[in-house]
């Protein structure tokens, strides 16, 4: 009963978002570190893929017949590998790489903002649960 306490909240979803952003930060930091490596292809964790899987997990949770366990959420995206990112709006250099530092840093900033947003909502959800439990407003 106690692990299922969080099943009806958005806490598992937000946990996944936070963990995904942290993993993606590592990949993007690797891109920045390898900015001047010849022949390096910038990598990224696909945000659309993660969101598609998250959407599917959310819909599966809404089905009243499913006995969803917390493990279902965790397994949804951890097998995503860091594939090579496509850069549609770039000019290729001679070694077929485009590591415009601005693009990488912007992706990092967007990732950070999403991470902080999810973390803030997660914190407020926990505080709300504590209010309900302690009965002290």
């Amino acid at each position, binding site marked *: 009963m106690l692990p299922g306490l969080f099943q009806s909240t958005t806490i598992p979803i937000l946990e996944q978002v936070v963990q995904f952003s942290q993993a993606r930060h590592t990949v993007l930091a690797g891109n920045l570190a390898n900015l001047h490596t010849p022949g390096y292809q910038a990598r990224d964790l696909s945000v659309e893929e993660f969101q598609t899987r998250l959407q599917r997990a959310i819909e599966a949770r809404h089905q009243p017949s499913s006995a969803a366990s917390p493990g279902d959420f965790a397994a949804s995206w951890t097998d995503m590998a860091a594939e090579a990112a496509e850069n549609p*709006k*770039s000019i290729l250099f001679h070694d077929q790489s485009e590591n415009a530092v601005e*693009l990488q840093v*912007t992706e990092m*900033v967007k990732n950070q*903002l*999403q991470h*902080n*947003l999810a973390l*803030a909502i997660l914190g407020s959800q926990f505080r709300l649960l504590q209010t309900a439990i302690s009965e002290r407003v």
Partner: protein
Amino acid sequence: MFPSLDISTSALVAHRVRMNVISQNLANASTTRNEAGELAPYQKRHVALQTDESVGGRGAAGVRVAEVEIDDSPPRYKWDPTNPDAIQQGPRQGYVAYPNIDMITEFTDALAVARAYEANLGAIEIAKDLAQQTLRILA
């Protein structure tokens, strides 16, 4: 979620290309031969920017480099018959063809690019600040 960041970044990338082209023009201001070693003076490159609707959206668009155009204005001729690169025959015999690049114009363009880059960086800072301040709704 934050399209303003993408828009400003597209501007940063486009202006960096412009800076690269300006540096290229300045570096090649006295180049009389092309990459194959033939006698063809360097033609000034010019960057054409274009509004990019695929970045941003909902009324706001970013920018992208449409193309890097090669200027086809005639070269600047300088009288120097002892130069091995001088034209040997024709009406301009004895003249050397130099690129028609004005350093003052290029430097001024470089300053303008630097200001534009700074302005877009400022826009990114403000966008980041907006997002951070939004979190204070919850605090």
